[in-house]
């Protein structure tokens, strides 16, 4: 139904288990190998390609002045389509154009087929023909492949509901959430960052795997626990957008890592203690919540063990190994967190980390601000524990997001563009020969 995810076609027809999804992809790649002996042209539908798709949708969307919700709708259509169809069967850029054209209509902001086509031609002149009937034809096949299930449920609404329940600083929301027993006082910045993480989640399988509220919780979780409220992350995002806009090739990756390295250096200068790595950011922003302690608080309650002992620095030693200098900040975060996840998700390891907890508790360097953040995280944990949310799914969603950010470090736009160009040109020459 269009107002209730639980009885929606998204849940009944387009939500996969991980196994189903990998089976679907496996059968596509098997088919590809049978069909085309020329492995060189096969483009794997990996995170790189998905980041590229995301950015190409955004590129077309900017030209048409489209709202974010339309762009992510298009992105879900593409994700769904590619669970059934191989990239080597269709014109990659026509797929993007068609998905955007269709998403505009579904979101009740229809664009004329000719204006969508002409903007797409401005974006990718080599790959989009002037014949609008091809776009209209593709629309038919796209809809058919989606089984005509076109109405989507996005995590943004879930995030707004979460904010209402958990409480926010914003005066507008305050009146709504005055009865909230959690009083998290989420800042606009935190909400904004969660929103951005949701935007990024469309580059992962999450929209195909989990209900929207899981994704919303995972993104809020990431923001709260990791305090992703980092100005350097903002910087990298800006530089990314810039480089995409200017079509500058590959400067993306280097920009990002440059930023990271700079931060890293400052970090090591300032804090010998790894635990305080993120205090760099607390100096820049107002938030100062040490990463590791945050994790400590969070994870026990996710396992329904309501350990409310706070400010323990677990397993610092193991972290030290992983977070050695050569990685970027984003990557470090992901490493740390995933380490913690795997530990806490298995009971024995969890128990052992509890022991370490107590032994390490002397090393605590807690401060007042820390306490404030901790109580917020505790409140968030209480909320999650009291809800019926599937915490295993939340954890998996968090991991997928971290994996995405980790992969993003290696994203090479030039390479992706080149391989897709080779693919599209080759298929085109084959089909025109037929």
């Amino acid at each position, binding site marked *: 139904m269009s107002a209730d995810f639980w009885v929606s076609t998204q849940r009944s027809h387009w939500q996969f288990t991980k196994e189903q999804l990998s089976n679907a992809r496996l059968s596509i790649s098997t088919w590809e190998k049978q069909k085309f002996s020329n492995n060189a042209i096969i483009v794997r539908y990996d995170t790189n390609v998905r980041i590229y798709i995301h950015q190409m949708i955004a590129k077309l969307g900017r030209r048409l002045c489209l709202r974010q919700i339309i762009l992510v709708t298009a992105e879900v259509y593409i994700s769904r389509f590619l669970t059934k169809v191989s990239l080597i069967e269709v014109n990659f850029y026509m797929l993007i154009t068609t998905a955007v054209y269709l998403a505009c209509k579904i979101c009740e902001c229809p664009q004329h087929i000719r204006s969508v086509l002409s903007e797409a031609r401005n974006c990718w002149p080599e790959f989009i023909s002037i014949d*609008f009937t091809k776009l209209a*034809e593709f629309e038919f096949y796209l809809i058919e492949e989606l089984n005509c299930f*076109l109405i989507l449920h996005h995590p943004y609404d879930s995030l707004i509901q979460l904010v209402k329940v958990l409480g926010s600083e914003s005066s507008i929301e305050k009146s709504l959430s005055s009865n909230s027993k959690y009083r998290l006082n989420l800042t606009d910045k935190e909400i904004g960052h969660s929103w951005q993480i949701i935007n990024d989640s469309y580059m992962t399988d999450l929209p195909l795997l989990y209900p929207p509220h899981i994704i919303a919780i995972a993104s809020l979780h990431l923001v709260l626990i990791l305090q992703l409220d980092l100005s350097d992350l903002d910087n990298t995002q800006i530089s990314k957008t810039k480089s995409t806009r200017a079509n500058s090739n590959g400067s993306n990756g280097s920009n990002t890592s440059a930023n990271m390295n700079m931060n890293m250096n400052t970090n090591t200068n300032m804090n010998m203690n790894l635990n305080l790595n993120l205090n760099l950011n607390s100096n820049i922003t107002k938030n100062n919540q040490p990463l590791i302690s945050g994790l400590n608080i969070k994870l026990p309650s996710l396992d329904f063990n309501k350990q409310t002992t706070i400010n323990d620095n677990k397993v610092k030693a193991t972290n030290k190994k992983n977070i050695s200098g050569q990685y970027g900040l984003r990557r470090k975060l992901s490493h740390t967190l995933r380490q913690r996840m795997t530990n806490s998700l298995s009971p024995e390891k969890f128990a052992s980390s509890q022991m370490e907890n107590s032994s390490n508790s002397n090393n605590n360097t807690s401060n007042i601000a820390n306490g404030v953040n901790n109580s917020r995280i505790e409140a968030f944990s209480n909320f999650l524990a009291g809800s019926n949310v599937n915490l295993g799914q939340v954890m998996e969603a968090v991991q997928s997001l971290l994996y995405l950010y980790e992969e993003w470090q290696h994203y090479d736009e030039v390479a992706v563009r080149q391989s897709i160009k080779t693919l599209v040109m080759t298929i085109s020459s084959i089909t025109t020969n037929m």
Partner: protein
Amino acid sequence: MSNPQYWNGQQPGRMAPNNFFSLEPYRQRKDASRVSIIEKYDVLGYIAAGTYGKVYKAVGKQHANLNQLYAIKKFKSDSKDNQVLHYTGISQSAIREMSLCKEINHQNISTLKEIILENKSIYMVFEFAEYDLLQIIHYHSHPEIKPINKSSLKSIMFQILQGLTFLHENWILHRDLKPANIMVTQNGVIKIGDLGLARRFNNQLQTLYTGDKVVVTIWYRAPELLLGARHYTPAVDLWAVGCILAELLSLRPLFKGEETKMDNKKHMPFQENQLLKIMQILGTPTVNEWPTLNKYPEYHQLQRFTMFPSNLKAWYTNNGGVDEDCLDFLSKLLIYDPNVRINSLNSMSHEWFKQDPLPVSNIFANSTMKYPKRRIHKGDNDILGPVNNNNNNNNNNIYSNKRKTNLNNIQPNLNMGMNMNINMNDLTSSQKRNFASFMNNSSNIGFENAKRRN
């Protein structure tokens, strides 16, 4: 133009040629595996036609659906000459109906069985409903007036409201409720149909008015719409329900206004006559009873009218009504102020539905009426061919064309999936052109079709 060798080389900045590929390998694979609609259904003939396309009656011929009856709605494709169809982009109306019908499932909404995309056309296969309210009202009023019995009347209203409540709870506005769009199955179950103007109203990226300048067939159009509301609410559907209730009582449309046609290039015309008809029965609206009245864009137009007193009770009595609860219910559906007008959920717990006779699940249960079945128009069973002559079918249609307002002409069903932002006037003129070309071609088209079949 298309030298493959050339394309294997890297030629930066080159524009893609017209025949640059989009999905050929995929299309071949898909087309080879598709089961044709004519292998699944036997088309018996068409039962309705309009600017949207045609509705065919069909019977299932596969094991799973053997002898089941279906209504297959085929959206018209844009075809200039007879046979050469090409893709033009799916209309907003078709996209809405497809996406909403796929998503929702309720016993009082017409049941979609499947959607088939084939031969550049869209086929929506619905379960067949033998009657509709327009047909039933017509039967009761011709040749002499035979009032609809109370049990049927109340059951019809209750089931309409059940379906409508479901739509509203799912954030869907119907926006084209009228007797012709309320189907009734053989078993006396109401099915609200035609979601071609329906849309979701949560997360509006632009105002409802921006999306569609004109909604709801003129006789059933709520006063706030006539006054040019930019934002409106599900209350517009409740007004239409009120009009339907009155029509079931009196067997005539309650507010049978003349639609003012578009003349000025820029502006939507003010529907003076329709508003006049409303005020003649309900009285002139005042700021007192409708506080936001003076905020509406067309408020100043009200000065044109003389003051009318409210006459609804007299109208009700004149039409043989004696049930106070029914009158109260009707008056609550026809409250001017959309914020005060009863909503769909509350309306179902109105006192009227608690009094005998109680609403029943089969609206024919306490009726001895034998309604005629839908007439099937033979001669066009070629469901795969282009929909060609839908403008000259009214001669053999028992419902005069007057009953069908030109709403369908306003709906931008055609033309490249044209959006709804465009000037209504352009649309109408393009519709006119289409119409003209149809009139010129239709006889030829029919002839050619006949020849081809022979």
